[in-house]
């Protein structure tokens, strides 16, 4: 069974890339990982099209967990998930967790072969209840 994939969505391409570097350092190539940052015009922001592409790149039959930073990253990610094919839509979750810590924790959990739900829960343990 494949491991859950991880997608990192930040307003800043540099934060997205840096968070992905930290994930790789922790889990190597044992999980599919993709990151995206920046709006459709190249400025700070997020966009549905690039998030969909990132989900494709990180795709795993076990599902994909998305880590986001601020408001628009979450809204755009949720929109991107809804626009997926029906058979994929239910296997992608947007985690309510801090982006850097959440990505590293989620990826570490995923690298052990945990289910999508467990990966999400591990990341979300970092959020204040």
């Amino acid at each position, binding site marked *: 069974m494949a491991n859950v994939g991880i997608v990192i969505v930040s*307003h800043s391409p540099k934060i997205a890339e840096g968070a992905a570097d930290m994930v790789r350092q922790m889990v190597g190539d044992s999980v599919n990982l993709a990151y995206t940052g920046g709006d459709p*015009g190249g*400025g700070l922001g*997020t*966009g549905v099209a690039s998030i969909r592409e990132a989900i494709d790149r990180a795709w795993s039959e076990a599902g994909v967990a998305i880590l986001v930073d601020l*408001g628009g990253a979450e809204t755009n990610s949720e929109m991107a998930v809804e626009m997926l094919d029906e058979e994929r839509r239910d296997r992608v979750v947007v985690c309510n967790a801090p982006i850097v810590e959440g990505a590293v924790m989620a990826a570490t959990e995923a690298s052990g072969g945990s289910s999508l739900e467990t990966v999400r829960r591990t990341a979300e343990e970092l959020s204040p209840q």
Partner: protein
Amino acid sequence: MTPALLHRLILAVADEVIAHADELTELDQAVGDGDHGINMKRGFEAVRADAGTTAEKPLPDALKAIGTQLVMKVGGASGPLYGTLFMALGKAIAPDASNLSDAFASAVEAVKSRGKSQPGQKTMLDVLAPVQLALAEGGPDLPDRLPVVAVAAADATIPMLATRGRASFLGERSIGHMDPGARSSALIVASLCRALEGSSIG
């Protein structure tokens, strides 16, 4: 609705948003990340570029096409929010727009759900909700009344405390500024109504 009228409406709304891009940016610089004007401009330039083809479609499909353009091109939280508004409207509306009020009500519900927000939080919903109420009341003077309702509702966000969106990070400091999303919603409603004057929606 004829393709010619639909074309005119699309251009009117797109031109209005594009013309006010700097103002929207200034409003967003005060309480947010300052990208609302440029984001909306990019989205509506894409909508404008496709206006000819879009206007040839039946109204529901045209609205869905506009929504999809906004989702893909605007970015920020406004892209999915305005995209959802137009797509949900396209999904619910009859080709002759005879159920405009009900369709708009379901589109506003879709925006609430997309943004996990309610009126009163200093967002675009503080314009969309009163506009929807006025639409539901109906009356022959609607095209005159709706822009007044929309602009007044945007002005009414000035004293509000933001509890959703980037402005909520400012807490009390969000008070005293108009919400940029409320302003862009008012611009869209007002320009649509002005362009409709003298022509029947059906």
